[in-house]
């Protein structure tokens, strides 16, 4: 079938009318991604309650490079920015573990709850658990964990017996054999969890007395502050148990209220908002019994805790009992001698109270609780506390911080129910107290920052007056700073405030105190003042951090300061030329952190602006240099990529406008500075090509001597930069691009060199991604379409480049089964038949292509036809090798189409070949019938339109 001597004659003139589409200039690439230029930033600390987290914790999330990368590079990850607060992050994790039930309640309530602004308990819970820990031994007194019950359950005949028996059991628990266990913190926590499980088990196995006993015993643990630093965590753990207990009792009473109704054959559940008169007598009786029982608990602290846990069950008895007992317990807490225990009982009372009560009027107890705390405030500094602190070797300031979680909660709850006018009252109360630092601190972190900011001066005076041993000055200033950050004070006071505050901040000798304070205030400085003040402040920071290399311990805080500065400061250029900013960066001596900081600075400058200031460029190059130098063989791929992208971004920032030569100089400098990173080099080549194209645009294609030299320099730049890129694929693409740009700028020699360079790379590919046929096929096709307009180099004969390319691709390893080579050959046929045309379908402006050079010289046409014949022969050989398969049929069809459309069918052998190919493709049923029919119909119409008899002849022969 295959005739080895095929004669090809390109069909040069068809009578077909060529329809042209109208080109239109466009501004946008249709496939370009939509990229948001500016990533909105969340102001750190906009949740006032985060004010109390110690700075160390705030940084946990920032230390992780991956989340950081995510936050600042990916425009889609705005959401990641929301997650600034480590507490809420933790809370989210905890939430997912929580019982879904409680979660849904929280969500449901959030809609019409006046406390919706409060930080949810779950997140506080997690925060407290991580913050208040201990390494000391804890003891737990219990009779449940390792022993069975002592009292055997007798048959109980009467209700009175039962009550007596239960009271006896209670007594035996009071006196019974309990033992102390000495445990580490982790063991303690597991024990508490065990107790929690035990309680649920006891309850579910109808041992309600035992459940109550466990609850009481747990509550009793809260009366004990033997390891102070763990107390807040203990509180959190144990109130969980009490909550469980309260819920169990409530649910049980609720179902009981239903069960009895069944007697009257109405099995109605109690509605959510039931009233006491809907509750059956027996449920009421049971409920009363519970309250009588807990009223007889001997000790004060457990009695209050258990009653609080059962508060919700008062609803079964009467509507107002609950509120009354809230008030009553608020008073009873005064009887607790240990102020720490008392304040946490208040906290629990408020926490339970706000979940139970519905009406706003009833929330007066919150305020009473807070004022109750204020009334007994002096007690914190009493002898009892002093002796306790001495025995536990704890400092007063540390002790005072134990109060903050509870106080913050209470005050925040209060804040939700009172109006602004309450604050002045509170302040005047506070002024009258001695040692008021704790109250001040609580007020500042509990109230809306706007309130605080408005009275900033007043607070400042009070802070400076309260020189007690409680919350230290730096802590108070920090809390105030956090408020001010969220909401700046009135503008006329700002300068004065800063002057006073910074005077005190800079007087701190202890670097820890200094830097935690400075960190809180820096944002205020950045937002509200000019670069002059910021510069002074930064200088002050450097001065304080330098002695004794104390900066080494505070890298994370310093890093936070830098990130606050760069994220808030409007004028990035100003920042870079500031005297003290880069020296501050220099303070980071540890390489990895320094790199982090540089990354942070550079990524935050991705605004719209461009720069051409040599000082700024220098500063940028300096920062980039740090990043670039951090890359080594061990750098992970992602890090490498990230740094590369940051550098590319900076390269795009530096813009000298129309001073192209200066721009090119900069690129030369950048190339020498960042030679290690592929994508930066690639970016540079792209930039230089852009430069070159821009030059041509400005000259409107008519280069003068100077611009011609410039574009040649650009082409040379590209040509020598590309070889240092590691990725072969990038190299191939850039060569092609640079070749095209050179051609566009009429630098024929340079274009030729680039294209030749491609031909030298192609045979030696090693990289898998560059070798992939998918890439190669499209790449070579692209190259072929460029070759059409490249004028022949007189040194290398007719279509020399194409010939060498053909040789190269023949040598490449192609997958025999796919036979992509044949497909490429078919594309080459397209190119060749276009080459033979009198005028090529497209040109490069001001470049004379082969059509003009040869003027359809018969020799040239002949050469082209010969090449076609050779190519066809090659294809036929390939087809034969391929054997019969779907792919063969496909290629045969393609070739057939090319032959009938591109070649002159009057040549007999071509004519026969076409028909044979058609039959080949139809053989064995591999062909797509409908496609073939469409081809045939098209050819038929074409033959009629062009009155091409040979084509008609062929079409007639085509059988389907």
């Amino acid at each position: 079938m295959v005739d080895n001597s095929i004669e090809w004659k390109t069909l040069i003139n068809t009578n077909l009318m060529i329809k042209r589409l109208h080109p239109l200039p466009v501004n946008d690439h249709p496939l370009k991604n939509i990229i948001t230029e500016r990533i909105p930033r969340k102001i750190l600390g906009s949740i006032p309650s985060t004010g109390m987290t110690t700075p160390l914790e705030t940084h946990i999330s920032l230390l992780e490079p991956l989340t950081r990368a995510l936050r600042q590079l990916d425009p889609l990850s705005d959401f990641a920015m929301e997650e600034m607060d480590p507490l809420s992050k933790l809370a989210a994790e905890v939430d997912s573990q929580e019982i879904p039930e409680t979660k849904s309640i929280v969500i449901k309530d959030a809609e019409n709850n006046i406390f919706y602004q409060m930080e949810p308990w779950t997140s506080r819970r997690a925060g407290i658990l991580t913050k208040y820990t201990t390494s000391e031994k804890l003891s737990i007194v219990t009779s449940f964990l390792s022993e069975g019950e002592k009292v055997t359950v007798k048959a109980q005949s009467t209700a009175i017996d039962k009550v007596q028996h239960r009271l006896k059991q209670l007594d035996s628990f009071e006196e019974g054999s309990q033992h102390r266990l000495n445990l580490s913190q982790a063991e303690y926590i597991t024990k508490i969890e065990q107790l929690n499980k035990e309680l649920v088990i006891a309850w579910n196995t109808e041992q309600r007395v035992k459940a109550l006993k466990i609850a009481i015993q747990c509550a009793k643990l809260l009366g004990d502050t033997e390891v102070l630093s763990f107390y807040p965590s203990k509180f959190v753990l144990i109130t969980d148990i009490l909550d469980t207990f309260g819920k169990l009792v409530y649910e049980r009473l609720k179902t009981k209220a239903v069960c009895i109704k069944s007697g009257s054959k109405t099995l109605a559940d109690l509605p959510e908002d039931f009233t006491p008169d809907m509750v059956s007598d027996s449920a009421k009786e049971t409920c009363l019994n519970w309250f009588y029982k807990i009223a007889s608990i001997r000790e004060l602290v457990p009695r209050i805790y258990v009653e609080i846990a059962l508060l919700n069950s008062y609803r079964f008895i009467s509507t107002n009992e609950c509120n009354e007992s809230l008030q009553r317990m608020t008073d009873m807490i005064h009887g607790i001698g240990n102020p720490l225990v008392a304040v946490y009982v208040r906290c629990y009372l408020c926490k339970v109270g706000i979940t139970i009560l519905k009406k706003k009027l009833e929330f007066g107890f919150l305020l009473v609780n807070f004022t109750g705390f204020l009334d007994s405030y002096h007690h914190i500094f009493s002898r009892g506390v002093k002796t306790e602190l001495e025995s536990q070797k704890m400092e007063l300031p540390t002790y005072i911080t134990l109060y903050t979680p509870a106080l913050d909660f209470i005050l925040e709850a209060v804040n939700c129910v009172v109006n602004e006018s309450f604050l002045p009252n509170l302040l005047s109360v506070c002024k009258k107290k001695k040692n008021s630092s704790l109250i001040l601190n609580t007020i500042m972190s509990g109230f809306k920052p706007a309130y605080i900011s408005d009275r900033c001066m007043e607070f400042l005076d009070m802070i400076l007056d309260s020189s007690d041993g409680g919350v230290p000055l730096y802590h108070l200033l920090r809390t105030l700073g956090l408020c001010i950050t969220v909401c700046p004070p009135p503008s006329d006071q700002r300068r004065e405030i800063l002057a006073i505050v910074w005077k005190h901040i800079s007087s701190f000798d202890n670097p820890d105190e200094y830097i935690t304070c400075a960190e809180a205030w820096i944002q205020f400085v950045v937002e509200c003042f000019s670069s002059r003040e910021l510069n002074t402040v930064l200088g002050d920071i450097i001065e304080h951090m330098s002695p004794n290399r104390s900066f080494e311990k505070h890298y994370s805080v310093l890093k936070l300061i830098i990130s606050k500065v760069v994220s808030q400061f409007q004028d990035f250029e100003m920042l870079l030329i500031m005297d003290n900013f880069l020296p501050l960066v220099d303070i980071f001596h540890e390489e990895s952190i320094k790199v982090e900081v540089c990354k942070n600075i550079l990524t935050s400058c991705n605004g719209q602006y461009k720069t051409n200031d040599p000082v700024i460029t220098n500063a940028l190059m300096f920062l980039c240099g740090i990043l670039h130098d951090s890359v080594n063989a061990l750098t992970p791929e992602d890090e490498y990529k990230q740094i590369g992208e940051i550098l590319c971004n900076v390269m795009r920032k530096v813009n000298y406008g129309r001073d192209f030569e200066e721009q090119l100089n900069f690129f030369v400098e950048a190339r020498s500075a960042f030679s290690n990173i592929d994508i930066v080099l690639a970016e540079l080549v792209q930039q230089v090509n852009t430069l070159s194209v821009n030059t041509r645009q400005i000259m409107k294609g008519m280069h003068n001597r100077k611009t011609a030299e410039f574009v040649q320099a650009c082409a040379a730049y590209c040509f020598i930069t590309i070889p240092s890129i590691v990725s072969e694929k990038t190299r191939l693409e850039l060569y092609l691009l640079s070749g095209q740009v050179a051609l566009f700028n009429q630098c024929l020699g340079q274009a030729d060199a680039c294209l030749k360079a491609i031909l030298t790379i192609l045979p030696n590919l090693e990289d898998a991604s560059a070798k992939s046929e998918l890439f190669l096929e499209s790449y070579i096709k692209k190259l072929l379409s460029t070759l059409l307009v490249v004028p022949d180099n007189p040194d290398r004969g007719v279509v020399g480049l194409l010939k060498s390319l053909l040789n190269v691709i023949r040598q490449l390893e192609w997958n025999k089964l796919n036979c992509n080579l044949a497909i490429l050959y078919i594309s080459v046929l397209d190119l060749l038949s276009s080459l033979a045309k009198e005028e090529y379908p497209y040109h490069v402006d001001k470049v004379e292509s082969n059509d003009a050079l040869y003027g359809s010289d018969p020799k040239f046409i002949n050469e082209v036809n010969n090449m076609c014949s050779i190519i066809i022969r090659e294809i036929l050989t390939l087809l034969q090798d391929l054997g019969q398969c779907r792919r063969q049929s496909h290629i045969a069809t393609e070739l057939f189409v090319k032959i009938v459309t591109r070649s002159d069918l009057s040549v007999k052998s071509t004519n026969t070949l076409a028909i044979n190919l058609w039959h080949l493709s139809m053989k064995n049923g591999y062909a797509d019938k409908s496609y073939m029919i469409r081809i045939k119909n098209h050819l038929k119409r074409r033959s009629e339109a062009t009155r091409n008899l040979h084509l008609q002849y062929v079409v007639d022969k085509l059988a389907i």
Partner: protein
Amino acid sequence: MAINLDIHLKRADKIYYEEENVSGVIALSSNTDFKHEGITLTMEGSVNLQISSKNVGLIEAFYNSIKPIQLVGLTCEVCGPGKLPSGLTEIPFEIPLKPKANRSLYETYHGVYVNIGYGLRCDIKRSFLLKDLQKTQQFLVQYTPGYNVTPELPLKEKRTPINFELSPASLTSGRSGAPDFLLRGHIESVCCNITKPLKGKVVLVKCALPVRSIELQLVRVETCGCAEGYAREATEIQNIQIGDGDVPHNIPIPVYMVFPRLFTCPTLLTTNFKIEFEVNLVVVFQDDHLITNNFPIILVRE
């Protein structure tokens, strides 16, 4: 052939007042038919007195335990001899709660030396070969609110708040051992409604030594009259802590105590026995020194 006998009272709280009908059902369940020789229901109520072994010897105490005073005794036949079908049989009943002649009803009370209890007993007589069945069900008796069983009590005068002040000087034991302290307080009334808590306030004005605990002790004082004379016994019912640890000074601490059911009843003075109550305010100092202040209280039902 198991027969279950039970008495269900209509009221869940089982509390009944004089002249009321105690109503409910006798529930009998059995898987077979069974014969019986008659079912009777008895209502009983009595005061049981016991003499403390502290006053007299143990053996005497045992022998001398005074005969119970019957307050209620009423038997009625539910049905004569017959046969009951298998399955659940419920026989409703209604018995008026009335004291025996020349007696009056007292509230249910469980103490150490005095017990006042009421119950229903259902007996099923069976033929002589089979065991008789019996079931008792306790119920509680309360005075109708406002009823005063002991009119001689000086209720009116006791309705005013009582203020008190404790200091080393006011102690009966003199100054011995007590640290310098001053405790002020008031109790709203020592004549208390049994259903309402005891209320008041105490303020620790000053105290040289830290306080360990402030407690309220509820004490019953039972007096039994017998051949040998009176025996008066005071025992603790409960102890409720109102102040824990070194309480803050000059801040009112609420006095609040719920009277437990069954173990308290309105103050009762009769010819044979008396039930009275007292509250002790106890302050324990760090060095375990202890001072108490006694308040006799009168309980009434209102």
